[in-house]
C-alpha cells in the first residue's frame, strides 16, 4: 500500500468532531479515595498467592527429591546386599559345602 494513500485516508469531519466531543465528554478524572488502598490490597493478595504457590512448589520439589532418593536407594541397596551371592563361583560354593560328602567318600 502506498504511503501517500495511507496518509490521505483521513476520518470524515463528522467523525473527527465526534471524537473530539468524546474526549471532552470523558476528561481525565480524579480517583476515588479508595483507589490506592485498593491497589495495595490487590498487590498484597497477589503476593500472598505467590507465597502460597512458592510454598506448594517447594513442597513438590522436596517431595520429588525424597521420592528420587527412595527410588535410588531401592535400586542401589539390593544390588549391594546381594552382591556377595554372585561374586563366588559355583565351584567355590560346592567346595565350601563339601564336608559331609568327603566323609562319605572316605568311608
Amino acid at each position, binding site marked *: 500500500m502506498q504511503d501517500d494513500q495511507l496518509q490521505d*485516508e483521513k476520518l470524515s469531519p463528522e467523525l473527527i468532531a465526534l*471524537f473530539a466531543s468524546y474526549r471532552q465528554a470523558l476528561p481525565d478524572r480524579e480517583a476515588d479515595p479508595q483507589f490506592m488502598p485498593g491497589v495495595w490490597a490487590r498487590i498484597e493478595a497477589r503476593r500472598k498467592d505467590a507465597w502460597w504457590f512458592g510454598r506448594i512448589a517447594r513442597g513438590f520439589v522436596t517431595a520429588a527429591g525424597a521420592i528420587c532418593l527412595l527410588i535410588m536407594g531401592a535400586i542401589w541397596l539390593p544390588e549391594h546386599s546381594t552382591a556377595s551371592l554372585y561374586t563366588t563361583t559355583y565351584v567355590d560354593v560346592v567346595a565350601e559345602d563339601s564336608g559331609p560328602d568327603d566323609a562319605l567318600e572316605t568311608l
Partner: protein
Amino acid sequence: MLVEFEEIELARSGDDAAFSRIVSVYRKRILGTISRLIGRPEDVEDVAQDVFLRLYFSLDQLRTAEVFEPWLYRLTVNAAYDYLRRQRRRNESRMSDLSEQQVIMADATAGSRVDLDHQHQRRVRETVDSMLSQVSEDDRILLVLKEVEGLSLKELEQIYHVKENALKVRLFRARQRVMKAYQASEKKIAEARAAKK
C-alpha cells in the same frame, strides 16, 4: 515524564513508597485514558487498579527508566484490551440492540432542559461507544489512542513495538472500518426514527 528517573529506579528496587508516589502522579491520566478506551465509567477504577498491579509486578522487566511512559501505556492498553474482550463475550447478545437504546435515550432526553450539557456528553459517549463496539478491540484501542488521545505515530510505535509503516496500514484499515460502522449506525438511527414516526 511526570516523575524523576530516580523515583522509577527506587520503585524497581522494591521501594513501595516510591511506587505509591508513581501511582499518585499517573493515576489521573491513566483513569482518563482507560475511561476513553473502554467507555464504561463504572469499570474504570477496576481496570486502572489492574494496570498498576501489572506495573508493580513487571517493573523488574523494564529495561530503562526512559521508556517508562510507553511501558505504562502498553500495560494500560493490554488491561483495556483484556477488559473489552471479557465484556464482548459477556455482552455479545445485547450489543445488537445498542443503537436502538441509543435512539430511545436520545429521544427521551431531547425534550428536557435540565442539565443539557450533561445529557449531550452522555449521548456522545453512547454514540461513540456504540460505534466502536462494532469494530474489533484492536481497532478500537488504536483509534482511541490516535484520534482521541492524540498520540503521535512515534509514540504508538513505542507502545506497539511495530514499525511506522505497519502502524499506518493498521490505522488505515481501522479508519475505514470505523467509518463504515459510523455510516451503518447513522443509517440505523435514521431508520429507527422514521419507523417511530
